[in-house]
């Protein structure tokens, strides 16, 4: 019991420690593809360090929501980390506190507070970005729901630890049509939720074209550091769910021992690195969609996951 709690905490520490690194590696890889040198892969850590040592300025007209939100954004991915398999393929202490739907709600709570905080300061760009994020969010919501329904339909459960086992026992199950289509739909969801390129440009600095970024324009100092770190962790958590639950549930610790856990960390990081390579290919080869084409992008994701469900019904 005690070691399972300890391992759960190790998972949280791994996510906290390596999420900025994943972001740094991703931006470095993108710059390399564009034949630039790019910043060091440790730049996000330096940014966080710098921001934590700066003064924080809060608008006089803002309410408690503005002060509370950075903690919310920071803490929600950590809660989700307790529920999902990051390093182990057996359930840890908190695994049965919530399933994938619960995890989705917790992540959505962070997004909800981010929206409120963006409106709170009455900066003209904040509400605009917030309403755009909501638009993407409410188009992504049905896709999330159908993905969860299909997962529970196939695996008979929405606890991620049970789901991941279903896809690979026997190995032939990996090629189940519902599985492959779900992977595709979830990849599109990650692109939309993480604000990656076909939906949003994460490196853009033009306020009118921003979707995700403009919500944190008003933050400075420690608050901004927490918002940024939370964003890194959210992306890391989404990638972990995608890789460890849906795509490649291999390379995770199988035994309750500290050695196994430590051994699984480099393997998980390797998987995430390979996924980042895929992400770089996607981001470098596509262009950002016009705002009103996003509904078509997510509509396609919706069709794909409904097709996954239909295919599951059709397979007797």
């Amino acid at each position, binding site marked *: 019991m005690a070691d399972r709690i300890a391992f759960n905490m190790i998972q949280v520490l791994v996510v906290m420690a390596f999420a900025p690194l994943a972001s740094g590696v991703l931006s470095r890889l993108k710059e390399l593809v564009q034949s630039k040198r790019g910043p060091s892969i440790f730049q996000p850590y330096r940014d966080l360090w710098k921001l934590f040592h700066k003064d924080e300025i809060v608008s006089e007209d803002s309410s408690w929501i503005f002060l509370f939100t950075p903690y919310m954004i920071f803490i929600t991915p950590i809660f989700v980390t307790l529920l999902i398999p990051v390093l182990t393929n057996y359930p840890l202490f908190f695994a049965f506190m919530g399933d994938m739907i619960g995890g989705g709600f917790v992540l959505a709570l962070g997004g909800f507070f981010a929206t409120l905080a963006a409106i709170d300061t009455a900066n003209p760009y904040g509400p605009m970005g917030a309403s755009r994020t909501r638009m993407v969010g409410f188009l992504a919501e049905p896709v999330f729901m159908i993905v969860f329904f299909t997962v529970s339909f196939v695996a008979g459960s929405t606890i991620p630890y049970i789901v991941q086992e279903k896809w690979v026992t026997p190995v*032939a199950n990996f090629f189940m049509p519902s599985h492959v289509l779900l992977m595709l739909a979830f990849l599109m969801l990650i692109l939309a939720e993480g604000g990656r390129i076909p939906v949003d440009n994460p490196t853009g600095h033009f306020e009118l074209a921003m979707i995700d970024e403009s919500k944190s324009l008003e933050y400075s100092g420690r608050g901004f550091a927490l918002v940024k770190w939370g964003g890194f962790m959210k992306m890391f958590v989404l990638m972990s769910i995608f890789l460890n639950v849906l795509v490649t549930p291999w390379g995770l610790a199988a035994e309750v021992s500290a050695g196994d856990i430590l051994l699984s960390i480099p393997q998980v990081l390797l998987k995430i690195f390979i996924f980042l390579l895929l992400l770089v290919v996607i981001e470098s080869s596509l262009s950002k969609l016009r705002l009103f084409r996003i509904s*078509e992008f997510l509509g396609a994701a919706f069709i794909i996951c409904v*097709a996954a469900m239909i*295919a599951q*019904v059709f397979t*007797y």
Partner: protein
Amino acid sequence: MNSTNQLLDNLNALAAALFLLTAFGMVAMRQARGVLNLFIAQSLLLSASALFLGLRFHSDHLYGVALVDIIIKPVIIPWLLRRTAPAEIYTRREVNQALNIPTALLAALALAILAYFLAQPILGAVAPQFRNPNVPIGIAGLLLGAFTITVRREAVPLLVGLLAMENGAFLAGIAIARDLPLIVELAVASDGLIVVFIMGVLTRAVYRQIGSTAVGELASLKEAPETAGEERTA
């Protein structure tokens, strides 16, 4: 042995599911070239499905079907279409479909679900080992091809919709009738070739006469009445 069969079943189901996805794509894709590429992908998936089923049931006929399919549909038909219809058509984007894209996709989803219920009596009549997703997905492909024809307003996507209907019928056919005589496949395939050739030439003729292949606007037999009126007053 059993696990190989299971793997083949899953791979076949996967090919069929992707087939369904390409059928949805044809309803939504704006560019004529994109529609044609989707058709090529769909035909490749059809032959993959025939190959997997052939391996699964050790049927030479299905290998033959896969072979004929892979030669005629993804290679010869697109080549014929590109030769006969003018190249300018393929770069065109279609902006005014009969329904807007999200609505068309939702209707297409409803059709796919309808196909499931249509397949039930057929599946009830055949032996258990033939009950695989090809039948409902093939019927869905047939319906979606017909739906593509109703919503599109450009000549090439219309023709591709017709060919997609045939693809759907075959996907269902290879699953139910395992020893489908090869001669049927050959006959249908050569028929399809002739259809494509005639339609391609027709499209070319229409394009030459009118300068457009936007079928949706070719609603009347004579030229627009206001120009006729002008002539009369002049």
